């Protein structure tokens, strides 16, 4: 056994050296042995083994036989966690924030639900490797802008085409009309803001009415009676309860309004995202049984007179009131900080266990992919990572990441620059005298 471990470690080093030259993921069969496994759904297994094969987790437990030809990775004193899921980002759709040419998440128009985030994702974005080496394996990437800015997608952070990254979930985004101010720059009077919100709500209702009509005609004619109408066609599955509606709503008054709207319109599959002031109306959200994606946790309170740690405590408060809560960073280039957002949520009321669930299984459940990911269980796809401690702590090193059973090179622009410049050559003097 020791020899086996030695050989495979050697092979691993060799492989790593190769990877440093041209980092590519590696597929195959892997045996992660001697590990502490945080399954999330079925407790912790100490000194256990996880077998990855054909992209899936094929075995989890103690006393597991290592399959013939498997690459063995000794995880003594290490921990295995499910790959983290960031329930709301711009990753892949935007590259450099201040350069409009690199941003593809914000299309023109109030009614453009047919804009698909999935196909616009750049699988080769420099930001993706930077993200996944931190243990975040899967993200929602979402359009934003007008009332119906497009369709968001759940993607695994590995693959060379969007189809290879497709994690099997899409949702239509709705930006709910807001009565809040847009920050210090917003100098509109209270009435102007109220009027703008009313106008937007009216617009929303008009659109919805039209989709309902479309649905009726489409049903009656069995899909044959209508012309090409992409906006309606994109919203049709939402009305029919086949596709999820993701409603971005933050101010407490708006959340109350949105709860009313969703009930009125009988929207069947719905998620609320944002909910910065969700804690103010948490019982109502819980009563409605609507799951919430919230974040960033590291944010300022939404009102000048709010307690300083309100944003940290928000997720925990909603969870305590009975809301199903998943976490997001709402980030583009720093999605890697998801575990820290979770850490702060844990510290300020949510607790470690729930916070971990909120970035793994709860996210998966909300997006209807809990049969595929979110925990370490046999049959799920192998999205997981190996680390040397609590992944919410900054001291912890992420040692190995697997996405859909592919071993990810632990290399990114950041690590490459570190390697090159930690001891720069030439240093101060170019020519050695």
């Amino acid at each position, binding site marked *: 056994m020791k020899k086996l471990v030695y050989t495979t470690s050697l092979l691993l080093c060799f492989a790593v050296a190769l990877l440093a030259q041209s980092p590519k993921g590696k597929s195959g069969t892997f045996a992660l042995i001697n590990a502490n496994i945080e399954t999330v759904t079925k407790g912790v297994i100490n000194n256990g083994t996880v077998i990855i094969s054909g992209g899936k987790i094929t075995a989890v437990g103690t006393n597991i036989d290592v399959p013939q030809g498997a690459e063995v990775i000794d995880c003594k004193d290490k921990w295995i966690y499910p790959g983290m899921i960031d329930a709301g980002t711009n990753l892949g759709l935007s590259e450099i924030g201040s350069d409009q040419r690199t941003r593809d998440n914000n299309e023109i128009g109030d009614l453009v639900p047919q804009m698909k985030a999935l196909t616009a994702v750049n699988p080769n974005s420099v930001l993706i490797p930077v993200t996944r080496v931190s243990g975040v394996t899967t993200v929602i990437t979402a359009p934003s802008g007008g009332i119906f800015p497009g369709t968001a997608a759940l993607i695994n952070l590995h693959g060379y085409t969007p189809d290879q990254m497709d994690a099997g979930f899409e949702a239509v985004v709705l930006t709910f009309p807001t009565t809040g101010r847009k920050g210090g720059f917003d100098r509109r*009077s209270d*009435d*102007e803001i109220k009027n703008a919100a009313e106008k937007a709500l009216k617009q929303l209702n008009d659109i919805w009415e039209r989709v309902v009509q479309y649905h009726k005609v489409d049903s009656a004619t069995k899909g044959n009676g209508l012309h090409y109408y992409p906006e309606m066609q994109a919203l049709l599955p939402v009305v029919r309860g086949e596709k999820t509606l993701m409603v971005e709503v933050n101010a407490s008054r708006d959340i109350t309004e949105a709860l009313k709207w969703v009930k009125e319109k009988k929207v069947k599959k719905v998620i609320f995202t944002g909910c910065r002031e969700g804690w*103010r109306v948490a019982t109502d959200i819980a009563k409605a049984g609507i799951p919430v994606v919230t974040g960033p946790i590291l944010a300022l309170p939404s009102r000048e*007179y709010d307690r300083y740690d309100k944003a940290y405590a928000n997720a925990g408060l909603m969870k305590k009131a009975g809301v199903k809560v998943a976490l997001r960073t709402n980030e583009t280039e720093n999605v890697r900080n998801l575990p820290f957002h979770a850490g702060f949520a844990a510290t300020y009321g949510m607790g470690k266990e729930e916070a971990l669930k909120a970035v793994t299984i709860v996210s998966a459940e909300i997006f209807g992919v809990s049969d595929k990911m979110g925990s370490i269980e046999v049959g799920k796809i192998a999205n997981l990572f190996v680390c040397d401690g609590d992944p919410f702590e900054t001291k912890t090193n992420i040692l190995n990441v697997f996405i859909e059973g592919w071993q990810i090179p632990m290399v990114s622009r950041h690590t490459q620059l570190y390697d090159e410049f930690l001891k720069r050559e030439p240093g101060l003097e170019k020519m050695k005298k």
Partner: protein
Amino acid sequence: MNLLKRGMLALALSWPAILFAQDDKALAPVSRTYAIANVNIVQAPGRKIDMGTVVLKDGLILFVGKNVSIPADAIIIKADSMYVYAGFIDGLSRVGVTKPKEESQGGSQQQRPKDPGNPKPEEAGITPQNDVRSSLNPADKSVAEFRNIGFTTAHVVPYGGMMPGNGAIVLLGGRTADEMVLVNKSSFYSELTPAQRVYPGTVMGVMAKYRELYRQAALSRSYENMYAANRSGIQRPATDRVLESLYPVVDKRQPVLFKAEKVTDAQRVLTLQSDLGFTLWLAELKEGWDIVNKVKASNAKVFLSLDLPEDKKDDTPARKKEEVEKNDKPKTAADVEKEALEKRKADFTAKYIGQAAVYQKAGVKFGFSTINVKASNIPSNLRRMITAGLSEDAALASLTTVPAELLGLSDRLGTVDNGKMANLVISDKPYFEEKAKVRYVFVEGNLYKLEIKEAKKGDPNAKVDLAGEWTMTTETPKGKNDETLTIKKDGNNFTGTVSGGRLLKPVDLEEVILDGNALTLRYTVNYDSQNLTVTVDAIVEGDTFKGTASIADLGIFPVEGKKNPK
């Protein structure tokens, strides 16, 4: 015809002239001697004569006292049992100053200033060589507005940026700008106002520029003195109208009248004063209660703002209904929070109102500044300050004796005493009572009588059919504006909308009160991104109503309504 009768005839003939005293073609008064008898004379705070007489002649107070004989040529003013005070003096104001036309920017994106770091002084708001005298207009409606509540003297300043120019002490009367001026170049006016799109574009820029200009003026001044002593052999001093305008300030011969409303700005001004050493008159202070000691220590002359935040009391029937409903429901956390926030807001608003009392208590003498406040709000604001702890005597002093002293006018203004200028205000009740109305004002011995609009008494028993559609016509300087007023009866209450005219969309009536045939309407319209509250007070007779519409602080206008046939 004997002298008395001639006098009465002259008085009768001159009435129109007195009423329209601003008209150039007014008939000159027959006599410049007036007698006001059987009046309560408040000569100064704490000095009162019950039932005395004041005699004015040629613009001066001739006699004040009990048992004063009335000269034969005196025009008798009917003011029995009324109250006479010295005309009020305002420390910082723009009464009578014409506002410069807003220069069209030509689209903010198109006109890029060429060298924004080194702009011409005018572009930077630095025009200290300007004189408010050149923009004075005695016919400006603000003159009458302020005079009608009792102000007879004001310290006015030009419009502009950080250094708009020289202020002047003016009388609120006179036919020409020059006639108004009592003391020219009485102060060097300043504001912490940044320029638009050129340096200084921020408050810190204004502070830096101020320091630099001051230093440059001091250097230039001392060089000038040296040059004046012997002009040969050295270069002549550079002429710079901006720096030259600063010499009187640098020499401490002219005070700097600095406007600062907020607690942060006021302290910035005090810092400039301590850094540079000029004589400071601090005006329009609104948030001064926490810095009273600092202000006192600086020896600055102080003029507190007469502008106060609104005390929004929502007394409409709808709101009262809401309150009743509220008390039946159990309190949620949100309600508790809202209550706490409302209380904090109310407590804080009270601080603004209590500012004057704080300054009185600290022994800081202060006048008042009216540069921001609507004239019609002044009496009620004064009453609010008095309710909050400012003594009536102190309030009166701050309107009369103190500003006279601060502005260096106590030898001729501020009290009702023999020999002083005949600036008086006469109100039918003690000035600080709620229902008191100013009836007469004297400015340098010229009489202004106020028309008291006898509000048409509403008949509380009249029955009126208010519901329906009306055409409401308001007459403003812009012409007649017709709007449609739709009123619905809802039990004992009324609701309604106003639409048409210049409104882009219908506006709900916030308040409809009908007391017999006395109608009050209130609604808010939005013009140019501003919310203007309109209050209509009218008497309804059959299918018409007539009254007045008060539009925010733009004025009061006649309004008429006629019911539309079904």
